[in-house]
């Protein structure tokens, strides 16, 4: 497997959807190509850091205010009868 082929398969590999044969070829490539190993490892870390980051969490007080506003508007909409929202 060449480095460019590794790059094409990287997303499928990280998502765990590669077929067994390609996965073996890719892991063989990673065992000797340090650059691709680093790209693979740091891309995986990138995803994990974003996933675990709790970026843009909705604070509980704002959450209840929003939910209450949503339900009030939904009930108003219901009273007015079916029309475009």
């Amino acid at each position, binding site marked *: 497997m060449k480095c460019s082929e590794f*790059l094409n398969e*990287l*997303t*499928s*590999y*990280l*998502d*765990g*959807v590669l077929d067994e044969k390609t996965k073996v070829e890719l*892991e063989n490539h*990673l065992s000797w190509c340090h*650059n691709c190993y*680093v*790209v*693979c*490892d*740091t*891309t*995986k*870390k*990138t*995803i*994990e*850091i*974003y*996933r675990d*980051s*709790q*970026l*843009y*969490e*909705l604070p509980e007080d*704002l*959450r209840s205010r*929003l*939910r209450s*506003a*949503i*339900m009030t*508007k*939904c*009930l108003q*909409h*219901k009273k007015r009868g*079916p029309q*475009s*929202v």
Partner: protein
Amino acid sequence: MGAIQNKLEGPVSEELSLVRAAKRGDDSAFEELVRRYDRNVFRIAQHITQNREDAEDVVQEAFLKAYGNLAKFQEQSKFYTWLVRIAVNEALMKLRRRKPERTVSLDEDIKTEEDSLPREIADWSPNPEQQYTQAELREILSKTIQGLPPGFRTVFVLRDVEGLSTEETAAALELSVPAVKSRLLRARLQLRDRLGRYFQRREGANGKPEVKDGDLKNGDVASGDGNQ
């Protein structure tokens, strides 16, 4: 090096029961759907709009639209996927209003394949995120993702932050599966490249990576990208 696991929402059958009850007029069932997905919709909206007030508006408008159009929901996809599609459209509309001088579309053709190629190969420190405080890390992550074109960051957020499958992301964004895969790869590689600036294994005098003064304050993480 193993695959990354997706975080999944509650059972689909439970979701469907709530949707059907809401369709019959049970507002507490709809409120339960709001409770279940409001945090996800807020995160997606803020990632796209990069603005908290807009994200709050998007949450309200998306749920209100979902409520008003519930009868039209055919149950051929998960309710959540349908809701995400509504929320993404609302968020993109906000972005267009805010930045009318720029084209904001998920269909925009963004550069060539060249931007997929990693520019920086240097390895990162072990547990690089631990070199920063939570607040510093959030700022780095926020500014870094802001530098991606909306079409890239939306795919990244749905797939990698919210854990939708490739097919669900394609359905929510009305893109083809190959388009989602291609954007996801490029988004992941671009974010990796940009984060490398903060996380690379190269020690400065204070033990932290040598990031230039003012990088965080001036927000020039995004400056290398003129696509947005």
